[in-house]
């Protein structure tokens, strides 16, 4: 059975690193894996979506509506946008941070109200203030690793395996902060 995880956020939030930590952890478990990334123009502060799929043999690198086992959302509005991709009974992990998109900044549209309530009404949602936890770990940019920590807890991959990948994926000078960030998320 192929496991399908979607990581959504705003360009610049570090979703790419999160997907690489996830991808490298699952190959060490012996799975076939595909990670589909977004580069180029869409990365410039726009909505970014990364798919990670693993199992015995993975064909398509993308995830369709109603298919994701887990959605890891780095921002509230992006969680809401990705909602239709979650499968029935899937798990939505959301960073409570809100970042206004340009149509809201220009006043053309409003940021939707009470997204958390709307999500909770229909889905299995875990809300995380990952920004505060990242700051607590020493750098607000570690939001991505906090969220990976939260997600790691709901997979069947051992804690040590995650730590191993983080050690090989993250630049040495940020390692301590990232390990702390992962632990804060994992032990939530």
């Amino acid at each position: 059975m192929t496991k399908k995880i979607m990581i959504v956020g705003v360009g610049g939030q570090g979703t790419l690193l999160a997907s690489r930590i996830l991808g490298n952890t699952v190959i060490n478990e012996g799975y076939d894996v595909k990670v589909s990334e977004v580069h180029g123009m869409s990365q410039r502060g726009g909505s970014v979506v990364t798919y990670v799929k693993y199992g015995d043999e993975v064909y398509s690198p993308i995830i369709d509506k109603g298919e994701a086992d887990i959605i890891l959302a780095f921002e509230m509005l992006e969680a809401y946008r990705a909602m239709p991709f979650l499968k029935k009974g899937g798990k939505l992990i959301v960073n409570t941070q809100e970042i206004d998109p340009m149509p809201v900044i220009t006043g053309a549209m409003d940021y939707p109200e009470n997204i958390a309530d709307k999500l909770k009404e229909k889905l299995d949602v875990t809300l995380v203030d990952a920004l505060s936890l990242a700051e607590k770990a020493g750098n607000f940019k570690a939001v991505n690793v906090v969220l990976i920590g939260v997600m790691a807890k709901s997979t069947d991959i051992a804690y040590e395996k995650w730590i191993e990948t983080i050690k090989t994926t993250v630049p040495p000078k940020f390692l301590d902060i990232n390990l702390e960030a992962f632990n804060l998320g994992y032990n939530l």
Partner: protein
Amino acid sequence: MKKLMLGNAAVAQGAYEAGVRVVASYPGTPSTEITENIVKYDEIYAEWSPNEKVAAEVAIGASIGGARAMSCMKHVGLNVMADPVFTVSYTGVNGGLVFCVADDPGMHSSQNEQDSRHYAKASKIAMLEPANSQECKEYTRLAFDLSEEFDTPVFIRLSTRISHSQSLVEIGERADVELKEYEKNVGKYVMMPANAVKRHVVVEDRIKKLTEFAETSSFNTVEMNDTKIGIITSGISYMYAKEALGDNASYLKLGMVYPLPEKLIRDFAEKVDKVYVIEELDPILEDHCKALGIEVIGKDIFTLLGEYTPTMIKSAILGSKAPESCELTETIPARPPVLCPGCPHRGVFYVLKKLGLVVSGDIGCYTLGAIPPLASVDTTICMGASVSAALGMAKARGTEFNKKLVSVIGDSTFMHSGITGLIDIVYNKGNNTVIILDNSITGMTGHQDNPTTGYTIRGEETKQVNLLTLCKAVGIEHVTVADPFDIKNFEKIVKEETNREEPSVIIAQRPCALLKTVNYKGHCTVTENCKKCKMCMKLGCPAISENADGSIKIDLTQCNGCGLCMNVCPFDAIKKED
């Protein structure tokens, strides 16, 4: 050893294993990471060329010189290099020669959705299409052998989902491939009419031989399962079809998409009840089947637009419903890409919008100057068009219109193909004003060096093309260098230069905020002096937004302290904090 690799990185690995010696490219999403990964191998000469035509010619020269060589580009880059490509098809190669072209179905980062497979047929050059990272590596490696065996350049066709997906790759060793002898061969390499006439015969003969090769080649594979449904497909579409239909269909996967086999397709079609052709974008495989008189279903049920998905294929062929999903019941704001906080282009567009100018735009991050609230770009066509199209506009509409018209073009794009347009302005007595957005890097594709940065692809220091001297040398007498964050001065200069009845260039100089060498300190905050006039919001900075009560907030996680908002605030209500 198996490694999780991006399709693009796997292409680089394949070229490395094939003993490639020279790789020349111009960056372009989704192809850029191929050449970036080539740099990891010290044995290979790599360069960022000024444009794709130059890159292709460098690779062609290296091949004639006896080395295995490669050039990589995005689909629209192939248009730029089409001229040498069509003729190197006639000359053939000495060392193996491979062109990697990455299409962008769905236009994640492109101005059109062209299908580069047309080029293979038009230029009569063999084309391979891998379906995952392992095939990216293997096909690239084998493409060099194929190139030398058939004396032809070979295309590798990628698409965004292949280039930018990571999957597992078995890593191999680099082959020891000797530099071939260089021998003068005028009949083969001097393409003047008398010689080219003879070479055309060779090309047609080669295509016949390659077609025979395609009948039995291991690039094309048949997978027989249930025979009620037969699928003819290639590349990423194979993966989508396989996920959608699994063992409930049989597959003819074409790893070589030009030239296409005949017997192989006929045999497959005979073994199955119904044949579907699944291919993103244009009906190339489908038209081939139909020309052979084989009954297939393709674009009748599959779109010509964008990317496919397994769900789409399931629903089109099996009529099955999409999985249950929790749909949104309200319209939510889109999140289009925006210029980054601290982007030097923001100052330029703020001024151009304020002055209400017509802006002839170009390809790069600054295309985003078209999006509100800056909303100042009027046109974007292709690399370099900002300069030449503005000349055309001015010639069509006259002097007064020209005083309200500017071109904007990045430093790398100017080197790519803006300079020729500028020469046209000088030569044909245009009075245009061209603004070169010199941010010291090729930005959009993720920071590649170019002839104006003073560094090579390997980060070695080199001669730096001086934009000011260059513009003067072609005959522009009024060249001004200005900081786009000094809003008042920049506005004054733009007014002066557009009103001048002579051609002029403004070099807007400030480095990309994402460069490691740029280190804005602290961040900006709004003080009690704020009169809620919202001047700062006209900058379209993603860090600045409005609270429910109309007051302004600056998001500290996004602000990098560039201070541009301080320069436009009329009440001195924004200050810098550590």
